[in-house]
């Protein structure tokens, strides 16, 4: 089964993944429909962590703390793709899941999938339909620079560190020299601002 892996050194914080995800999950499916629409659901968020950027989304853990915590039967696993899915029709926005998700991957708001005119929990669905048709998640498809990779989940990674982000990180190799310089200078800039000099 495949998962989304992150090569954060290659993340340029362009947020193309955020846009692609928003469109993928918007009923209109186009940018102009999603723009300014407060119900637009974005399941991936590019964090800025010092000089690094990091696209954050659900890791579809195995076992998944959220799934075990949901008292409403709203979270389930697709046996075929392994995706951890959240059914907004059953979700009661109780936050039992968000309370234990180690990755802060679950958010709440009124989305287009809300059924009862109130907020629901929402998170990455691994673009389950696309994936089951042989495609890749929208964010991975949108990432130009190779920061998001959809690859076979090697079980060894899982046992090494079942619930750690490290399981999902890839190490960038062969970063071109001009990018290396760029990264180095930015690192200095941030280090000084944060007082790390």
């Amino acid at each position, binding site marked *: 089964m495949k998962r989304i892996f992150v090569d*954060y050194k290659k993340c340029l914080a362009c947020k193309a993944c955020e846009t692609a995800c928003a469109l993928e999950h918007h009923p209109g499916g186009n940018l102009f429909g999603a723009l300014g629409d407060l119900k637009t659901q974005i399941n991936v968020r590019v*964090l*800025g*962590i*010092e000089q*690094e950027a*990091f696209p*954050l989304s659900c890791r579809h853990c195995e076992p998944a*703390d959220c799934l*075990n*915590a949901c*008292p*409403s*039967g709203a979270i389930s696993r697709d046996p075929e793709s392994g995706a951890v899915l959240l059914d907004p*029709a*059953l979700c*009661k*926005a*109780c*936050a*039992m899941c*968000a*309370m*234990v*998700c*180690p*990755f*802060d991957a*679950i958010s*709440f708001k009124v989305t287009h999938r809300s059924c*009862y005119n*109130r*907020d629901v929990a929402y998170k990455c669905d691994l673009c389950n339909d696309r994936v089951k048709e042989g495609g890749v998640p929208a964010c991975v498809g949108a990432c130009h620079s190779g920061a998001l990779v959809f690859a076979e989940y090697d079980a060894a990674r899982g046992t090494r560190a079942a*619930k*750690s*982000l*490290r399981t999902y*990180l890839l190490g960038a190799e062969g970063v071109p020299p001009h990018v290396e310089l760029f990264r180095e200078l930015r690192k200095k800039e941030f280090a000084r601002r*944060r*007082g790390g000099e």
Partner: protein
Amino acid sequence: MKVVTAGTGMAAAEFVQRLRLEGFDGEIVMCSDEEFAPYSPCVIPFYLAGEPMDTVYWKGKDFYGRYGVSARLADPIIEVDAERRLVRTAAGRSETYDRLFYATGARSWYPRPEWLKTRGVFGFKTLTDMVAIDRYIREHGVRKAVVFGGGFIGVDAALALRHRGLEITLVHRNTRVLSQMTDGEGGEFATRKLAEKTGIDIRLRTTVDGIVENGGELSAVRFSNGDVMETPLLIVSIGVSPNSEPLRGDDKGVHGNEQMLADPCIYTAGDVAVTRHAVTRAKGVYATYPNAMMQARTAARHLFRGDGAYAGSINTNVLKKHIDFPIVSAGSFTGETVTWHRGDIWRRVYLLDGMINGYLIIGDTRISGYIYHLYLSRKRVDKTIRAILAEPRHDSYYRSMLGMVPV
């Protein structure tokens, strides 16, 4: 092998589902005093708030049929005869078992049980309660309610009824609501914010001492300070007690060992079970769904495979239903405190021997998963916790994972 469950609640349903998924093909009988398919008490307030009844059946309305279960409903078990391995019900039936799964949960506790005779006074615990409250509100055009008891269930009730459009007065004996899942300062902050955000009239250091009825129907309640408030609806939610009498003869709960066995042939789980805390090892009733679920799974695995052990319960809880202002807590509120507060967000961790002993996170859930896992990990965090709580972008987990010390 014949398996009987006392109760068709969350623990029993998880237990039965697990058994069947594991491959158990023996006879299963599920007994309940209520008449429903297994439902989630956590969800039932939403029925009152106007959402469809079907969503309370968290494992499906067709549960009994799907899992090949004989259901004996609307007939409470009144006695468990462990010698003869049979249970007896109020209607005089009996059911033998090879293994009993005893998960009867808990019931509302009433200071004055006779109040319930008055129409308009309800508990807030079961689906039966919700159906009755709903009908009463509809039939009487109820616009306002008094909720007596500001614990988790009381606040849950108040928020659900408010969502339905009722004007709510919440009466609580303590100096703050949610007194069990908060400490003094955090609880007072949460109480203040709840009042601000919801407009619920919260009366602290107050109890309901008497009711006024009129032709068998509630017309007003009298508070401990002597005030009388007119209301057609009173919800009493000041506490619960385990339904352990049929097995143990008292309401002190049922002790389960590491395999969740209470007797050689009786498993127990859920709100009726007394278990050890995963961190403190203290014995107690840890009445939340995740504990009930893990206990039920432990029992199912042990019954079917003969192995496995329960790791212990965790007293995490979160209140967020019907409000965008989560209140998360776990552990015990003793030790050295580290607090961070900005605007709507208030966070406190209690440290003991450098490890997290308890925490209270109010206003958002963004770092709650990280703190939860740090709490369980028993790692020393005294050097970093301040920075973790204060990280303005709430991304301390990612910081630490990318090897950047939180600042």
